């Protein structure tokens, strides 16, 4: 999985540079999230700008990350959802669970 990680003022930003997040690659994201949390990350933005397709496995990994961040008294926020991805969040009501921002900057601003 092609991932890029940046750190801004203590907030990790994870750019998922794939066009799909599905049962074939979502475990790789789960592993990376676990590594970040194990290394002390608490606050995290996952940027989904390049994702145009997400399935229930992909949603499940994001929920897992959300719960782990909460356990660590941090938070996992999302940015740049494409329309098809946003539809899946709305269908499963997960848009009520996550803080979702239109850009990474807006997401980072929410931590300040």
């Amino acid at each position, binding site marked *: 999985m092609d991932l890029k990680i940046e750190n801004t003022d203590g907030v990790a930003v994870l750019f998922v540079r794939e066009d799909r997040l599905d*049962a074939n690659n979502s475990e790789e994201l789960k592993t990376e999230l676990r590594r970040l949390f194990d290394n002390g990350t608490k606050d995290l933005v996952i940027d989904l700008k390049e994702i145009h*397709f997400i*399935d*229930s496995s992909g*949603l499940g990994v994001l*929920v897992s990350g959300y719960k782990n961040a909460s356990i660590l008294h941090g938070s996992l926020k999302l940015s740049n959802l494409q329309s098809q991805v946003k539809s899946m969040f709305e269908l*499963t009501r997960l848009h009520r*669970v996550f803080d979702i921002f239109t850009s990474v900057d807006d997401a980072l601003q929410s931590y300040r």
Partner: protein
Amino acid sequence: MKNDIDVDIRVPIHTRYLRMIGRIGEEVARETDCPEEIRETLPNLLAIVLTEGVVNAIKHAHSADPEGDLHVRINVSKKDLVVRIYDTGIGFDLDAVPPPSLTSNGLEEKGRGIFIIRSLMDTVKYIRSDDANVLEMRKNLV
């Protein structure tokens, strides 16, 4: 001729084929004559239900037979679009799959696949037989 399409897909049982199966579904949807209100969303809808159905077959129905083939049929007629996903595994009980608890905190990590399929399609059945079980998902086009 529109709306007389029958696509038969057989691939090895592996999630690496999800992308290919989803793209085939998208192309079929684009060739499908359907009501204006679902025309724009039908390609993504079909890709989603194919993905969820295939993953369900891989994880639950094919667990006892990982060396077999995955068999998917997409049939479009004037009145409906039907996706059938066959498996020769132990199968599962469609009605035993609980919906994600939408009224509680909704933070389950699993269990959304069947809920998503049921939300997007008009009729969903899982038919068991001696030869092969089939998950049948139907979308009305009229």
